[in-house]
């Protein structure tokens, strides 16, 4: 399937720049907050006042793409947590008001499928509408869903994307569980920190996918996922995915890895890099946008920018030869692993 248009709201200025800026934003501390655009003109103030951050970002990235299309046959979102901040506010209200009458807004905004529903309502789209919530593999499942719809001839054009937001409550809980670093780091030294934990990120990346296209930015060739694998199983999955698409490791010229600076879980990337891909150009993205369950969607955005020649920023030095095949390998907490094979 083909990516013909894309938008992202992320901790980088991707929305306004239409790619990554020449000098990406350097973040410090353990939260990489999204750079939200001015939503005036995009979202009516009467609706915006009620939207949580995840809905705002998802609508902000997704609605312009829908508006540029004549027909959208499906809206497919991957989001592990949805509007996490509003969800936790709602849960706290249940306790605070002793299970009495609750204000509906936080509940309306907090469900993971609120974004896909809002996109459909705002664009008056009544087609297939679904949200995948498989935590660290939610975006991969959204893409697989899109591929299946295309294969079955049920869609020609699909909006697919992700959204995830930082919640202060959840950040504190995850920090106690060791997910995030206790010491401060910066974008520049995150990946070489050598300490446990990573940094928390957020964002929404949206894509217009088509079954057939002459004019396109990049092609998504295949998607694969696995949970609780051994190292041999990950290497096997990569080899099987390449073989299925008549490729060998040496045919991959660029690798995008989800290295997060967590000394406990970056070993997976080191193994894949060392055992299968020693000659390839390697790109990382969590030093730009932080870690979140569907961060592989931003890697897909990055890969599409690389393949289509969009601006990709100072730290990402282009390889000397043109890019033909990109493999994205990412995992979430070392548990859920995903592969996305992209091509020109």
């Amino acid at each position, binding site marked *: 399937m083909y990516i013909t248009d894309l938008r992202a709201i992320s901790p980088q200025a991707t929305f306004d720049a239409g790619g990554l800026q020449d000098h990406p934003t350097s973040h410090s501390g353990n939260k990489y907050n999204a750079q939200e655009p001015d939503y005036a003109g995009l979202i009516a103030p*009467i609706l915006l*006042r*009620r939207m949580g951050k995840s809905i705002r970002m998802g609508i902000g990235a997704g609605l312009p793409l829908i508006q540029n299309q004549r027909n959208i046959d499906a809206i497919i979102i991957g989001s592990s947590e949805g509007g996490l901040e509003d969800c936790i506010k709602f849960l706290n209200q249940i306790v605070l*008001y002793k299970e009495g*009458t*609750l204000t*509906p*807004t936080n509940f*309306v905004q907090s469900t993971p499928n609120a974004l896909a529903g809002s996109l459909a309502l705002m664009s008056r789209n009544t087609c297939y509408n679904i949200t995948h919530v498989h935590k660290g593999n939610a975006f991969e499942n959204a893409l697989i869903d899109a591929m299946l719809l295309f294969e079955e001839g049920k869609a020609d054009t699909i909006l697919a994307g992700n959204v995830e937001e930082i919640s202060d409550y959840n950040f504190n809980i995850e920090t106690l569980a060791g997910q995030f670093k206790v010491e401060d780091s910066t974008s520049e030294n995150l990946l070489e920190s050598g300490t446990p934990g990573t940094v928390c990120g957020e964002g929404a990346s949206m894509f217009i996918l088509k079954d057939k296209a002459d004019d396109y930015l990049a092609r998504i060739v295949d998607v694969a996922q696995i949970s609780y694998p051994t190292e041999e199983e990950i290497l096997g999955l990569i080899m099987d995915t390449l073989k299925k698409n008549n490729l060998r490791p040496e045919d991959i010229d660029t690798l995008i890895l989800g290295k997060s600076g967590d000394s406990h879980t970056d070993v997976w990337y080191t193994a894949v890099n060392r055992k299968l891909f020693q000659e390839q150009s390697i790109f990382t993205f969590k030093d730009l946008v932080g870690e979140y369950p569907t961060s592989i969607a931003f890697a897909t955005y990055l890969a599409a920018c690389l393949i289509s020649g969009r601006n990709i920023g100072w730290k990402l030095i282009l390889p000397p030869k043109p890019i033909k095949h990109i493999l994205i390998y990412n995992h979430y907490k070392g548990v859920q692993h995903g592969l996305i094979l992209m091509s020109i």
Partner: protein
Amino acid sequence: MDKAELILNLKKQIIQYVNILDYKPDQIGDDLPLFGPDGLGLDSIDALELSVMLEREYDIKLTNPAEARKIFVSVNSIAEYIISTKSSE
């Protein structure tokens, strides 16, 4: 609490509950319609927020939707309803 003080408090609370934080209390007229294009432009979700506000702030629980329609006409009508409910308790 006299009615003027109640109306001022209600305006502050409505701004918070329906999340129109760019409004100031003096921008909301006492008799300005809360719903519809000629007034504040609130909608059905806001009506639920106002019901929750009455329950939490004034310990008044609305059970009849038809009754709510008459009460939530303006800040003035809400204030009058609160005063009459509290005086009959």
